[in-house]
């Protein structure tokens, strides 16, 4: 049986990859996928703890996260489509009009 710590380390690595991806990638679709990666890293941590503690709460929470992630994907992709139509670009650094 794989120890819980291994799952958590994997989760942390996935999360860190997601964070670095969001911060470094300029392609908005890549950023979006990195956000999904972070969410799934969190899901993995939930499941690991759920198994470790013999409680179902964590698994239920994962369903919620997946549902929200699906909704977010729908809205996010719609925004990206609108963005690409308006600006003919997917580079987020080109979209910086909202500044003080």
């Amino acid at each position, binding site marked *: 049986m794989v120890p819980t710590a291994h799952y958590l380390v994997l989760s942390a690595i996935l999360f860190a990859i997601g964070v670095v991806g969001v911060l470094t990638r300029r392609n908005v679709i890549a950023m979006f996928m990195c956000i999904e990666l972070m969410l799934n890293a969190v899901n993995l941590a939930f499941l690991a703890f759920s198994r470790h503690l013999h409680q179902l709460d964590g698994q239920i929470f994962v369903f919620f996260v997946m549902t929200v992630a699906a909704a977010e994907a729908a809205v996010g992709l719609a925004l990206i489509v609108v963005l690409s139509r308006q600006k003919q670009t997917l580079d*987020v650094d080109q979209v*910086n009009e*909202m500044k003080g």
Partner: protein
Amino acid sequence: MLPYFALIILFPLLGALVNGVVGKRLSRSLIAVIGCLTVGLSFALAAVVFRELLLLGPDERTISFKLFTWIESADLTVDAAFLLDPLSVVMILVVTGVGLLIHIYSVAYMADEPGYYRFFSYLNLFIFMMSVLVLADNYLLMFVGWEGVGLCSYLLIGFYFDRKSAGDAAKKAFIVNRIGDVGFILGAFLIFRTFGTFNYLQVFERASEQFPSPEVGFGILSAICLLLFVGATGKSAQIPLYVWLPDAMEGPTPVSALIHAATMVTAGVYMIARSSALFSRAPETLLIVAVIGVATATLAACIALVQTDIKRVLAYSTVSQLGYMFLAAGVGAFGAGIFHLVTHAFFKALLFLGSGSVILALHHEQDLFRMGGLKKYLPATFWTMWIASLAISGVPPLSGFFSKDEILFNAFLLGHGVLWVIGIVVAALTAFYMSRLMFLTFHGTRRTGTTADHGGHGEHGHEPKEPSFLMTGPLMILAILAAVAGFVGLPAYLGGSRLEHFLEPSFALRYVQSSGGEHHSFSSEIALTVIAVLAGLTGIVIAYYAYLRDPELPGRVAGRLSGLYSAARQKFYVDEIYDRLIIWPIQRLSDVVLWRVIDVHVIDGLVNGAGGLVQYWSSGLRRIQNGYTRSYAAWVLLGAVLIFIYYYVVTA
């Protein structure tokens, strides 16, 4: 029926609302009917109430009617309640009665003026506010009416608002009255602090319990009365706040008659008479009231001697007669003061309305020296005005004779010999300036219309005409009242004053000196009366010689006393002195200190400084909001890391 006397105030309010809101779309005759009918209904109701009051016993003639609780807060409860007693019923009869006559007169007088509905709306509003003032059963509600009549006065003085002088006069009246009102409201607060209520009857009862004898020295009661008196000097045009009343003549003449002669300006006298239970226990203040009253009477009479504008003569005459009323109150003869108030309302309203018909007949000519010889053109105006003029001069048996005599006799009786002498002199001056006005207006030869100096009005060259019956009717009714009203207040040697007997319950709680020697012989009273009448007749005779027999005489006298004459012509420079002593320093202070230092540097500095500080801070902060999504994500990460570290440190 009786408790519904509060309805008296309702009708004028309705009239004011209807004329004010939809009057622009109504025809002139409908506006006039609404205006007159509402006041007429009020007067009829007041008359019915008066009749019912007479049927009750003297001790039952105090009835209050509570409409609703107006203010309730901790110890303070103020009702919107109305008090009917002999004093308020006399006042309401005068207000609605004279008011009705002047409304009717205005129908014709204002017929050619624009803003007809506005005029009647204001006039009705005035009657409403004045009714609130005299019928209120506590000082706070009285203050509502007090301010309301001030507002109406302002609106009506400035009725011809396209004339700068009218606008200025309105502002002057309003501001000077506010100075007095500060005194009134402070006095009312002090009453609440001392007696714990604003209600008249409770205040007077507690005052008579707490002060069984008059206050020695200048204490709390004297302070209350002095503050109330400051309010009265504003509203009733006494020294030092009388300066607004002569300027108030900028308003239409019926307004001068109603507000600035017959009713509103007597509010101060009414208020002091109403507070007789307080004033009679504050001898220090009472003396101040008497001295101010007689000083005002003298000063105003002196100025009236030399004014050439017909309305200004009457305005100063009003100030002077109000001085008499304050003299009456000051010597403790509150009933005599109210008596003079009533008779004065009749004859002064008549004089103003008469002058209005003269002014209208001469196409808005107000200079006495451009009138003359109008006797044959305006017979009704001529006769009625002479009756009023003789009444104010104290010629028996007209009304002014009885009321003025009652005041002077009371002043003498209470040991104020000096005040009596000055009062007699003022009576002579009054007779002189009134006769001067009459001789210059109606007698002699016409000084206008025939000469070229009036050429601008060439098309009006036809002869002056008596106005319609709508105007002469009220003149005749007022003339009858001015002639016979005195018989309700006969002196003791003719059977005593029925009016003062009727008013007695309203003054029941005042302090009465129980000293002996009250009994004076009738012969001394008659002797004093004869002196007063002789003084008045002397004034008339001198005026006759000076302005009819020997028209050169006034010029010679003026030349001999040129300093005094020009000082009186310039109203003793009181306006200029106020300007120099009060207005100029305030303007300089505002300009040099308040504007250039406080406003520019302190206030603007604070405001600009606050803005500048925020700008300074945000110039740094706004670099954070750079529009790059990934930099925001980095900030979010930084925040998350910081929170993580924080919890790690705290929980560790």
